[in-house]
């Protein structure tokens, strides 16, 4: 027969465990972005940009294959080349499967990042990586759909930098947001996340 104290202790432990699991999923590291911050499905977005080859691209360009999308700018000396190198490493690890994944770098600095600039910049990374730019309005539209933020920060000498959301967005083939791969997330976490999103594709492929 268990003592009342023992039952109370077990009960209390169970409550704490439940609270912890709840916190983990809702506010803690296991949390999805808050509802207002969760990217919209690609099918609900409306934007029109230009890829590195001068072609018009929009949400429909991405839907049909899973997608990795990252916001940045080419004048960025640290985060952007590092992330694009990380992404290149993930794509290398995916091998031939990487061809079934849209991988897009979108500039938040369209004033300086022209189509030609984006074409040259992405050419230094994995060949699967595309570079999209567009009018400031259209960049704002896609960032809004992704709930991504960016902000121009003036330097003293006429130069400027951009603060921007640095995570890599992962969408499945139907255009549904799956998760964010955090800046500098180790490859052993990133690649399985991508593979899971790519599996959704086969499951979601049935009519």
């Amino acid at each position: 027969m268990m003592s009342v104290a023992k039952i109370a202790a077990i009960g209390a432990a169970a409550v704490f465990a439940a609270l912890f699991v709840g916190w983990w999923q809702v506010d803690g590291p296991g949390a999805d972005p808050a509802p207002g911050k969760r990217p919209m499905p690609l099918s609900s977005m409306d934007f029109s940009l230009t890829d590195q080859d001068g072609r018009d691209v929009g949400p429909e360009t991405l839907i049909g294959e899973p997608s990795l999308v990252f916001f940045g700018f080419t004048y960025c000396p640290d985060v952007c080349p590092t992330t694009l190198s990380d992404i290149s490493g993930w794509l290398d690890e995916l091998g031939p499967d990487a061809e079934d994944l849209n991988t897009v770098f979108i500039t938040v600095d369209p004033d300086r990042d022209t189509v030609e600039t984006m074409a040259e910049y992405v050419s230094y990374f994995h060949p699967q990586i595309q570079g999209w730019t567009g009018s400031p309005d259209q960049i704002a539209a896609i960032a809004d759909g992704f709930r991504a933020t960016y902000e121009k920060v003036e330097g003293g000498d006429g130069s400027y930098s951009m603060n921007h959301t640095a995570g890599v967005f992962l969408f499945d083939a139907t255009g549904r947001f799956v998760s964010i791969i955090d800046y500098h997330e180790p490859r052993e976490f990133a690649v399985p996340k991508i593979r899971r999103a790519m599996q959704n594709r086969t499951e979601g492929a049935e009519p």
Partner: protein
Amino acid sequence: MFKTFAKAIQSLSVALLMGLPMASSAQQMSDNASIVVENPWARSSLGTSRPGGAYLTVLNEGSDPISLIGLRAEISGMASIHETRTNSDGVSSMAPADDIMIPAGGMIALEPGGYHAMLMQLQSPLVEGETFSLTLLFSDGTELEITVPVLGIGARGPEG
């Protein structure tokens, strides 16, 4: 049997000898050997209009704390240490770093996503395969000039 052993020793010593010059080029130190810089590297740049970024590790082998207070480089009109921060919303920003204290026997790493040498106003492009010189300025007046190899834009670390 003995022959194989001798051969193994021989190839081992060759490996050691080959390893030596590599170690010395990866490590550069101040005259009194109290400050050691390891594994410097930079990414190549697209022309000169964008700032370049370089990384390295500084070891303080001395008996007193010392601070890294700045940078100077002929290749850059304005070289400084910057720090990347990513907030809880996942937004990254970059700002000039304060002096970085290195405790005696300690080290600091300038590495992707944290501190980096920000090379603004490039006087000439950083070209893959070439090197440039960078001077680290310390709080005790030490100025340590090091040679930084330039790797590709897509490099992830000192190994490429």
